């Protein structure tokens, strides 16, 4: 895309927020998908925020006043999604899993966003040997299977420690390292494109310093597509976290609840006919990733005029109702 779609700023700030503005301009099936995505993502965020309130038990609780919890009990009225081999309540663990996931996603994406954007900006604008090295490095990392890199990173970072913060940070940092090249590439490419745009050149001919050009002019323009990458990366972060957990490089069950780890532990349950320990964390991953992906994809479609779509029906309806003359 070479023409920027400009924000229509005579609308209220609320309407200009990324997601809301997208919702307003969507229609038909596209709107349906966006709404489905928003609902799932909203559910995920609410669950994460209020897990301690909603969940009947703690994530690593295997007994209460009335005694030890049953093990691998099928869903019933007390344990609505059953219990695990350790006697943890699957429902509570699944809810708390959202909390862990969101921490990791936020930490990872925010860190990689910050570093990736900064590096991309400087590297793309200033060029030179720094740029060349950064590009080769990021290309190499980008090309390498991200999960493997995350595993190596998680070993390096955590040195095997398991505390909640340590575990979450280790996972987050491993994912960060993997993602930096993505932001770097996007921002750098955008900066390279914008560098040739007349408005940047007009700042240059005025004599603005490189820093001024980068931060006053390029930053906002180059980060236009980031909300989209943000959601897409959030899904990737979640999947990477689950992959780490599944392979046993993640967070321990007593420090936090993590879906991938629970799924791993549920493998043998599932083949023994105990379906509930694996199904719910698995579904949680699937639905969350779907929700975020739907939001991301819809935003992508709506951002790109080539992909944005108005139904002919709607056009017909409007012409026929004659409301056209009224609108400005």
């Amino acid at each position: 895309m070479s023409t920027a779609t400009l924000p229509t700023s005579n609308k209220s700030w609320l309407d200009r927020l990324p997601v809301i503005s997208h919702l307003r301009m969507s229609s038909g099936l596209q709107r349906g998908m966006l709404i489905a995505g928003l609902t799932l993502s909203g559910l995920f965020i609410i669950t994460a925020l209020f897990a301690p309130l909603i969940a009947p038990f703690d994530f690593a609780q295997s007994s209460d006043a009335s005694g030890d919890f049953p093990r691998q009990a099928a869903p019933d009225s007390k344990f609505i999604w059953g219990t695990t081999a350790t006697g943890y309540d699957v429902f509570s663990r699944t809810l708390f899993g959202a909390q862990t996931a969101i921490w990791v996603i936020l930490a990872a994406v925010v860190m990689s966003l910050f570093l990736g954007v900064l590096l991309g900006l400087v590297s793309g604008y200033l060029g030179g040997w720094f740029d060349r090295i950064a590009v080769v490095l990021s290309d190499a990392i980008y090309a390498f299977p991200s999960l493997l890199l995350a595993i190596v990173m998680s070993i390096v970072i955590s040195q095997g420690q398991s505390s909640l913060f340590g575990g979450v940070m280790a996972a987050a940092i491993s994912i960060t390292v993997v993602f930096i090249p993505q932001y770097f590439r996007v921002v750098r490419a955008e900066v390279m494109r914008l560098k040739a745009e007349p408005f940047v050149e007009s700042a240059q001919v005025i004599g603005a310093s490189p820093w001024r050009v980068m931060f006053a002019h390029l930053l906002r323009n180059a980060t236009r597509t980031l909300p989209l990458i943000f959601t897409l990366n959030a899904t990737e972060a979640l999947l990477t976290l689950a992959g780490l957990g599944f392979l046993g490089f993640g967070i321990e069950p007593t420090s936090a609840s993590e879906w991938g780890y629970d799924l791993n532990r549920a493998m043998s349950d599932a083949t023994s006919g105990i379906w509930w320990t694996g199904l719910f964390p698995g579904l949680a991953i699937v639905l969350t990733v779907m929700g975020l992906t739907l939001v991301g994809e819809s935003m992508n479609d709506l951002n790109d005029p080539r992909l944005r779509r108005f139904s002919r029906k709607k056009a017909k309806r409007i012409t026929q109702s004659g409301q056209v003359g009224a609108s400005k």
Partner: protein
Amino acid sequence: MTNSPVLNPAANAGTPEVLRVEDLNIDFVTDAGAVPAVRGVDLQVKTGEILAIVGESGSGKSVTARTALGILAENGASRGGVYLKGKNMLTLRGHELREARGRDVAMVFQEPSTALNPVYTVGWQIMEGIRAHNKISKKEAKARAIEAMRQVGIPDPEQRVDYYPHQFSGGQKQRVVIAAALALKPELIVADEPTTALDVTVQAEILQLLRDLRDELGTAIVIITHNMGVVADIADRVIVMNQGQIVEQAPVIQLFEAPQEDYTKSLLAAVPHLGRESASEGLAERPHQDAEVLVEAAGLKVHFPGRLGAPGFTAVNEVDLKIHVGEVYGLVGESGSGKTTIGRSIAGLNRITGGSLKVLGYEMAQFKERTFKPLREQIGFVFQDPAASFNPHLTVGECVAEPLAVHRDLNPPQTRAKVAELLESVQLPAGFANRYPHELSGGQRQRASLARALALEPKLLIADEPTSALDVSVQAKVLELFRELQAELGFAALFVSHDLAVVDQLATWVGVLFRGSLLEEGLGSKVLANPMHEYTQRLIASLPVPDPREQAQRRKLIERLNGS
């Protein structure tokens, strides 16, 4: 062929009509709500007639014309009737619609490079249309494709039929597109700005081709353009559109000589006319030639290296020129001749690779951003596309204040006052400072851009096609403003344009650039009236003037030139 449009028999009544549009209304749904694009349009096209539709950007020309093919964007809805040989293209569906497309009506697009699929050979694309309508063998289809290519004047069509689009020049690509349209011998060709993307010299050839087609095959042509010169050159009848409605319809001579509507009159008045209002009218020698030299190029060379081992490209080659204090230097030349590159080199946006270029005494061969920076406040720059030259996230006020922020140490109220003053000088209300660039019209944006360039009262202004993105009426106003400001502030300017008439209006001293070399220099009136170089002659002859009678004369001239 010398038949004048006036005498064209097709223009007479009685010939069968190919296309009839009745009460056409089209609306689009967009983010901002519904957009009415066409309102109650009625028109007819007869066999062998060339109908020109003119009007400013967004007036609904393209949308109207495309309905003749039954093409309408997904978000559009139409009412009314578009009858092509009696069939209503608005209601035709599926197979019948496909039958009509190509066979009865064909389309020629503005950008030949995007209208051709880059990954297939041109022959494939021409044949495809043929085979979609006729059950014939590949070989036969190919023969017909070659024939069509020959018809549009592509040399060696037997070989070139297997070339890919990128292997053709822009003009040839447009010929291929026309060949594809011709292949099925349709009765109507819709040509949407078929020459806008081309240089004037090529434009003249394409227009000639269209005219020949009409004469030889009797094809009706609807040509859309906003160039009045093109209209004068080719049209039999003209429709003027404004805001989705037809303002006026008339035979071409009548329209130019006796326009009825005010809108048409103002439109015609705004069109620059070569040789009228020349800035160097009556001058005998170069004014300001004794004044201080601001820019001096000697043997200037700019070479762009190729990528991944590809050969590079020399955009500017051995150019010598001088710009004196207070002088407006006009630089003309066709696309890719290096005009912009020279302008950018002066502003330090390009490195020069050879020769010498002194800007305000600074040798650009030893360019260092740090040492050049102090000089920047004496140089202003106006870009071609005003929309792109403003940071979309800053208000107009902030953009205009940018040079002040960099070079002057003003407090906010002072800045605000200065910005208001600047906006006023370009005749914009001070309140515009708080708007965002996209909330201004094109002309207003270009004024703001001028304000920014002049904020530090530069000695030198570089204006790179500052009006080519604007509609003629707007262009006229901006040019007028430019002239006034130049007279008032007395800055020297390098004025770059491919429009000879515009350059002549503004610049006293004009240079003609061709493939990176400066062919000739001189007083505007001299160079344009009496070109020395053959290329310049051809350039000027190719430029259609907005006057049908005069243009008919000029066409003879060009034919003679071509014949020689």
